[in-house]
């Protein structure tokens, strides 16, 4: 399997570390909403089909990448830098 790293290009999956479900939102650090924290830490969407997920190019540029990948076929549909994405919808500094 190849993961397209926006910086390094297509690289073998062995260079990457999987960081899981990219649909989770970390609550505001001072939030005391237990349910929201639980959801962030423990609950996963786990779809059969397109999955938005985070990979780190740990054996390469070490950037985190948001990848949309089909879990039925392993075909990668899209990838982008996690940092760019989170910048775009920047939340309040926390």
């Amino acid at each position: 399997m190849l993961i397209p790293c926006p910086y390094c290009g297509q690289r073998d999956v062995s260079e990457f570390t999987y960081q899981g479900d990219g649909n989770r939102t970390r609550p505001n650090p001072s939030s005391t909403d237990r349910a929201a924290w639980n959801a962030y830490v423990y609950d996963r969407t786990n779809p059969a089909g397109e999955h938005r997920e985070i990979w780190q190019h740990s054996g390469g540029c070490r950037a985190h990448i948001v990848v949309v990948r089909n879990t039925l076929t392993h075909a990668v549909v899209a990838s982008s830098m996690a940092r760019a994405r989170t910048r775009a919808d920047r939340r309040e500094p926390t």
Partner: protein
Amino acid sequence: MAEYSALSILKNAFAGNRDWKPAWRKPEPKPTYDVIVVGGGGHGLSTAYYLAKEHGISNVAVIEKGWLGSGNVGRNTTAVRSNYLLPENSRFYEFSMKLWENLSHELNYNVMFSQRGVLNMAHTPGQLDDFARRGNALRHIGADSVMMTTAEIARLIPALDVSGSARFPIIGGLMQWRAGTARHDAVAWGYARGADRRGVDILENCEVTGFLREGDRIVGVSTSRGEIRANKVALAVAGSTGQVMRLAGIDRMPIESHVLQAFVTESLKPFLDTVVTYGAGHFYMGQSDKGGLIFGGDLDGYNSYAQRGNLPLVEEVMSETLAMFPGLARVRLLRSWGGLTDMSMDGSPIITTGPLPGLYLNCGWCYGGFKATPSSGFCFAWTIARDEPHPLTAAFTLDRFHRGLVIDDKGQGSTPRLH
């Protein structure tokens, strides 16, 4: 239906084997059952079996979207053991081991449970202490476990590299002699036949497409073979848990589905008489009665429903194979396959009522599902029949994650690929 025995084999042989009957019926679905078990894998079938046998509930349907036993019961590496660290797990798996020990008789089906031992290798003094901790924990709950010295290991498994010059020399091991291997498909077929003989309907090629509800309550399922109603609907769908729960309106679970690859070599004369694991990586190997070395390692490490893994993991496992068994370099890998594992957030399973009324859930087996087949079915049947957890699975709740009551055998937290 006829009992299986040496005598019945001889009798049939003289009749040209023409009188054997199907191991289980292929009935049409009834409109209503007392219990529907979704999932015709090992756990679903054993659940149905024990519902009938232990609780007298035989008006049960097991529904399976493909062929019976097509899930992990048919694609694992067949190891059976109870040598877990934490007592919540080891007590449960030890109970399973006890059921395994009599399973062939219980089912009148030879599941070929061979108690040839499972040996974990230690490579550092620290690891040896960790194994002592685990072994002591097992002994305290009544399970068997002994330490082995390198010399004893070398005698038992001459193929192992026990030299001090190995990159990670073996300095001892933890042996559970009562552990071993079983013939995986036979377990599914034996439970299917056993459940069928007690009146359970096994419905193959019957895919759940939705849940029937009355208010909040689940009252049945719609399937590719029509609607089927029941007071209780129990899920034992292993890798597909997330998908089926989504049909019930629950779109997030403390579970990720991962692919776990397994491997078999070409058939060899007896090479390895026990099951071994490598302590400096993640690797385990046993030999089937047919002669193939059956082995595996880590998860590929990403969400997948493809039942197909990738090359890096293959290479990793083969490297570990040779680190342990240098003589296997010219032996050839015959086949690889991938199974779906429900990886839970703490590496331990879930057997529980709910999360909706009328629904019962059995999932999150990670690597452990095959060896749990008897006890999982036993305890799940109890939960379904009595609407309360079996004492051995009382800790395997769904809410334990949120409450912080995790059963984290590997201490890895909520990173499923590491469990």
